[in-house]
């Protein structure tokens, strides 16, 4: 092998666009994932604003019902598969090797591939907006037969896009598991791993378990649409409810895929800014594992109204309620970590605190939704919309932002602008609550979800929610500006970055060199 080539290969990044296309460096790929996710976040966000603008007042003003349905569908798909999941994979790429003392991910070339599938998958999905008949319009849960017999022709492109996203996720998950299990520094036992690494390890197993189920269900749709099968068509001996069982067998673990890494991030941040060890490390690990296991036996709580037998309703109600126990353990642990600490409130901590409070509110409404006889009233109303946005926006998204602010100085060597960070936090916090809190009320008062127009008694809170959505949406531009200016210049960060930081990633200089831990560190 030519030694000069080998040497350049090991020193720094290649130049030009080739660096990003051919990179196998976990930091580069992490960056790609994070930017991709942010672009998708803004894209899905614009769709959300269009939806909210239409719902500002009763009557149809801006868009027609069919396009409205395309917007709700694309908003959901983009936010779940394009924004939240890639953001967590991006953070995993950047941080897991640095946290476990590994030089890179275990399978670097596959890492490149799992990222580069995504832009193609999402381009294909977004291009359906310009097709005859429009984009998918059957909701992000794409229930058959609305998504099969009655779907627009673009559904086939949607199915292939979902396949590609699934392949990308599975490869990402395999890589993360391989890295965590094989590349830990000497002395780092499993129970010494940072919680972000633990939560991602469990999440990766969830992904491997359920993404093939998603691939299976969309393939069955494809067969129904093009090859004359009747999996979900009652007239041919199939069962539309079967679709929902398979979908939610994927879908419920999926929602934990979007929240477990968030638990990990928050469990890193709170001890740092409380200057105190996490109260119950082991119980956090066990709680995460319990939540993951339980997530496989609760799927039918999304289907309480489909006419399950009584025994089925009771089983899924009890199993779902049980999830409150390990989730409670996590919240109590975070609060106990803050208790008698020495807290400061930098932007990552503010986002983490808001996460704890607002995620818990989402947890409360989740517990209410678990009660089957009452769920008959909540099901498919704005109460559900409020619930899952509380766990996903001030839940998952706030945790991602907290993580971004927390590790940004480590990534680019400069501190972000703290004042601007706080302004971003307060605008987001206020915006999120103005948007989603009133949705609890309109849901309870009887407004179904996914409707482009509504009865007059829902008008006032809808107007309020729309105002909140615009505040929240536009305040993300502050974040964008802050990140870009932080990359360009800013106060030089030390290796530790934060006074109370702890863990291997804070032992390497800031910015983290292109190749870190070429020699494994010793963990005591």
């Amino acid at each position: 092998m030519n030694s000069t080539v080998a040497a350049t290969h090991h020193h720094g990044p290649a130049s030009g666009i080739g660096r990003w296309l051919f990179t196998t460096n976990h930091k580069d790929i992490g960056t790609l994932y994070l930017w991709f996710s942010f672009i998708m976040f803004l894209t899905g966000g614009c769709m959300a604003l269009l939806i909210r603008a239409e719902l500002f007042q009763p009557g149809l003003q801006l868009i027609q019902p069919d396009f409205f349905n395309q917007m709700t569908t694309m908003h959901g798909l983009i936010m779940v598969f394009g924004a939240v999941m890639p953001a967590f994979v991006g953070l995993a790429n950047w941080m897991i090797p640095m946290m476990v003392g590994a030089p890179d991910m275990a399978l670097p070339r596959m890492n490149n591939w799992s990222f580069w599938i995504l832009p193609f998958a999402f381009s294909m999905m977004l291009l359906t907006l310009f097709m005859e008949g429009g984009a998918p319009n059957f909701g992000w849960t794409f229930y058959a037969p609305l998504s099969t017999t009655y779907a627009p022709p673009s559904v086939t492109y949607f199915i292939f896009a979902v396949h590609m996203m699934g392949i990308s996720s599975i490869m990402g998950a395999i890589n993360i598991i391989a890295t965590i299990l094989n590349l830990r520094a000497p002395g780092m036992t499993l129970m010494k791993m940072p919680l972000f690494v633990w939560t991602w390890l469990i999440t990766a197993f969830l992904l491997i378990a359920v993404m093939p189920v998603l691939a299976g269900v969309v393939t069955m749709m494809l067969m129904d649409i093009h090859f004359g099968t009747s999996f979900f068509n009652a007239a041919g001996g199939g069962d539309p409810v079967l679709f929902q069982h398979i979908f939610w067998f994927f879908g419920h673990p999926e929602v934990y895929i979007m929240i477990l890494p968030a638990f990990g991030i928050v469990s890193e941040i709170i001890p740092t800014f409380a200057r105190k060890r996490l109260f119950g490390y082991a119980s956090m690990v066990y709680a995460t594992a319990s939540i993951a296991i339980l997530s496989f036996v609760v799927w039918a709580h999304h289907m309480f109204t489909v006419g399950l037998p009584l025994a089925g309703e009771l089983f899924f109600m009890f199993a779902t309620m049980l999830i409150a126990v390990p989730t409670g353990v996590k919240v109590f642990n975070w609060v106990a970590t803050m208790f008698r600490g020495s807290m400061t409130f930098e932007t990552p901590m503010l986002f983490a605190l808001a996460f704890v409070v607002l995620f818990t509110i989402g947890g409360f409404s989740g517990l209410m939704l678990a009660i089957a006889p009452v769920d008959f009233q909540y099901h498919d109303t704005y109460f559900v919309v409020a619930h899952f946005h509380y766990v996903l926006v001030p839940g998952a998204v706030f945790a991602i932002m907290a993580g971004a602010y927390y590790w940004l100085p480590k990534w680019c060597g400069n501190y972000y602008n703290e004042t601007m960070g706080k302004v971003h936090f307060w605008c987001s916090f206020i915006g999120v609550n103005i948007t989603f809190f009133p949705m609890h009320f309109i849901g309870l008062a009887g407004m179904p979800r996914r409707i482009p127009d509504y009865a007059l008694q829902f008008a006032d809170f809808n107007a309020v929610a729309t105002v909140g959505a615009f505040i929240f949406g536009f305040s993300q531009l502050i974040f964008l500006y802050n990140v870009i200016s932080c990359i360009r210049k800013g106060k030089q960060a030390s290796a530790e970055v934060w006074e109370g930081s702890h863990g291997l990633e804070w032992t390497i200089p800031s910015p983290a060199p292109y190749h870190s831990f070429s020699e494994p560190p010793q963990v005591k």
Partner: protein
Amino acid sequence: MIRTILGFPLLLLFAGSAQAAWEVNLPQGVTEISREVYDLHMIIFWICVAIGVVVFGAMLWSVIYHRKSRGAKAHNFHENVVVEIIWTIIPFFILIAMAVPATATLIKMYDNSESELDIQITGYQWKWRYQYLGEDVDFFSSLSTPREQINNSEEKGEHYLLEVDNPLVIPAGKKVRFLLTANDVIHSWWVPELAVKKDAIPGFINEAWVIVDQPGTYRGQCAELCGKDHGFMPVVVEVKPQAEYDAWLAEVKQADKAASEAALKTWNLADLMETGEQVYAKACLACHQTNGEGIPGAFPALKNSPIALGEPGPHIDIVLNGKTGTAMQAYRDQLSAVELAAVITYERNAWGNKVGDIVTPAQIAKLKE
């Protein structure tokens, strides 16, 4: 921050007395079950508020008193088996306390036995069909809010989007069982005041029941995304005292008879076109659009279409029997012979389609037999 959060449940409390536009809570409803559901909802809500006060209170306390700027020093305690067991066990018992009444209510809801009236409810894109089993009463119920109100060119009425042409009518004080199914995609029949929400699934039959003591009009909507006009298929239930219900039943049967007799009289093109336009607005316009041009890629145009301009046979066939695998429904049972004849004639002679022939109600009545 945390104060804002704690403020919200309080807002929920005080807003209860505000005017209807700021409605914030579930309705108590008008059935025994709906009141039980409401009580369950409130109990669980208050338990959540109580837990929230404790957890957020502890957090707020730490945020205020254990901050570095106040000189707080970190006490590095961690792991306490007793505390950890306590905070695992206590929630568990709270959950059991919630599960017991919830289970009892659910068991009651599932008791579909001994109904006094059975009604089959079928969801269609985007209307409901009500069939009174054993009564020979069968009708469709669709949105009656005028398009002008939806498009903001007219002032919106009191029951905007929650009004229908033919409401479901049930007798007060009787156990009425609903058998739900659907014709095309999944719909969900929901009336909040009755605490009934059940999916209507093609090929399957679900059951639900109510006993409503209080006569009145109760409104709801389809709750499962069912396509373009999902937001425009309300449910209206009128509960009448037994005597009024009986009178209504007789009236409906009489009207049905009159409609089938109308098919026997002779109709001219102008009359059919006039009726046809009304029927078109009710049954066809949502997909094929006012101008008959449809939506490219989703719903085909009728204007200049080979079917509308060709022989009447295939045109009658597609309207009566629909087209399987598409959103085109079978209108055989949805419309009367007069309505079918009128709308087919209209489609053949509107928007520049000029076939000039008449499809007569008598012709359709024969096909319907």
